[in-house]
């Protein structure tokens, strides 16, 4: 299959005036096919968010390039949408307005924005909360709004930066299955960052394991577990073995990082 999203030899070093520079990423090469679900796992500070920002076009790489269908990424574009690690809903806008925010910025007509926003409000199970403000929602619902906002602009590539990190274990599992069903029905290319290895294995076709700083691709693990997947999969020996394998890779990295004094 022809690669849809291609990351070629990306380096990123942060230079800050008067402070030591930080090498966040070194020589990242990744190819992701259309409709593929790929996760990135790695120690804290290994440059995962930085890579996602570069792919989204928010940051320029120090060296290397990102291509979508052969086109060089220079800035954010309609073909990509991002769900951020930090809370980034506009507190003075309602659920519907937040979900439609990307469309409003793209100067879509009001009725169309409302119609599309409603569709994704329904899809993410937020019906009945359309007029609520973010501070009136639970953490889980806020993350649904974040996901809905990204989906509403109909991107071909969905970039998710630890979208469920702040949620409790139960809500998290529910959100995982919902994300899977949304992915199955929309067939978007998904790149997900997570700290939960079982989440990565459960959702993905492929898990990319990052080494500690500077972030490098330590290993790409193909997950050939059958789909559609249900939560019962998490108890299968094949699943457990994969989680265990990835866990060992990361553990070695974290240990090495600690020994380096990082």
């Amino acid at each position: 299959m022809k690669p849809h999203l291609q990351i070629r030899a990306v380096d990123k070093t942060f230079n800050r005036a008067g402070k030591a520079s930080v090498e966040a990423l070194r020589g990242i090469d990744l190819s992701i096919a259309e409709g593929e679900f790929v996760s990135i796992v790695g120690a804290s500070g290994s440059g995962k968010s930085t890579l996602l920002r570069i792919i989204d076009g928010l940051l320029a790489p120090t060296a290397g390039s990102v291509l979508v269908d052969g086109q060089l990424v220079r800035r954010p574009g309609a073909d990509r949408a991002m769900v951020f690690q930090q809370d980034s809903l506009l507190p003075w806008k309602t659920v519907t307005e937040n979900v439609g925010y990307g469309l409003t910025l793209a100067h879509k007509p009001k009725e169309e924005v409302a119609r599309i926003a409603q569709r994704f409000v329904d899809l993410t199970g937020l019906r009945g909360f359309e007029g609520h403000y973010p501070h009136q929602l639970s953490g889980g619902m806020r993350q649904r709004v974040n996901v809905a906002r990204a989906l509403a602009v109909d991107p071909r590539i969905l970039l998710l930066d630890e979208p469920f990190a702040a949620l409790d274990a139960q809500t998290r599992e529910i959100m995982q299955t919902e994300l899977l069903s949304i992915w199955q029905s929309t067939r978007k290319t998904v790149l997900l960052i997570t700290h939960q290895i079982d989440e990565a294995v459960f959702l993905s076709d492929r898990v990319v394991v990052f080494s500690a700083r500077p972030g490098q691709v330590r290993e790409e693990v193909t997950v050939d577990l059958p789909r559609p997947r249900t939560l019962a999969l998490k108890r299968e020996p094949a699943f457990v073995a994969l989680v265990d394998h990835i866990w060992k890779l990361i553990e070695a990295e974290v240990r090495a990082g600690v020994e380096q004094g990082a």
Partner: protein
Amino acid sequence: MRKIYDFLEQDTRAAGATRVLISTAFILIIWQLVSLVVTNRLLLVPPLEVATALVREFQQGAMATNAWATVTAVVSSFIVSVMIGVAIGLALASSRFLSLTGGPVLSALNSVPIIALAPLFVAWLGLGFASKFVLVLLVAVFPVVVTTEAGLRATDKPLIEAAQSFNASRWQIFTTVTFPYALPFIVSGVRVAWARALVGIVVAEFFGSFAGFGFAIMSASQTFDTARVLGYVILLGAMGLIGSVAFAALERRLAPWRLE
């Protein structure tokens, strides 16, 4: 008793009005009691006499003249200072150069007691509207400048990044993120500006005018008419209170998420 507390803690207009009424009544009672002890009427007059003096001023038309002079000057100058303050705040927040070079000058000016320059302004601009206008402007503009700049700079980075990720233009980021975020900050600055504007107008009128609440207070105190002095002070207090309550309510409306 519980029920009364529950009612008073509500965020409704009725509860707010009741709170104000109760505290007003409380002050009036204490005032009345104190004036039973302090019987020198040059020092203190009981509430009822102050009310009578106010009614008399009203009937003679002096109050209307004074109110017109004070309110036109303070309101027009206040509005202009809010506009100028927001404009300067925007300029400072959008340009690093301006904020680095202009910021220190502004904070130096802000710490000068501009009120003390009132006699000078009167000498430069004469008695009447112009000197009042300029003095009020100078005292009221700073809180608006400071809060506008701070509010615009305080905007959560993730909110801006999310807008950028949807390809928002700089103008869209300003109108949909930074300005709405700064608005409640600005209103809190406006609230302080209103209180300062009232002080400014009174002082300006002390030194140079022939009408206005400040002028009335000055001339009444020169004739030892304590009832009239207190009457006009109460009117000024009411103007301050109304402004403060209104702007606080606006602030809450604009940023309900900051309460929780």
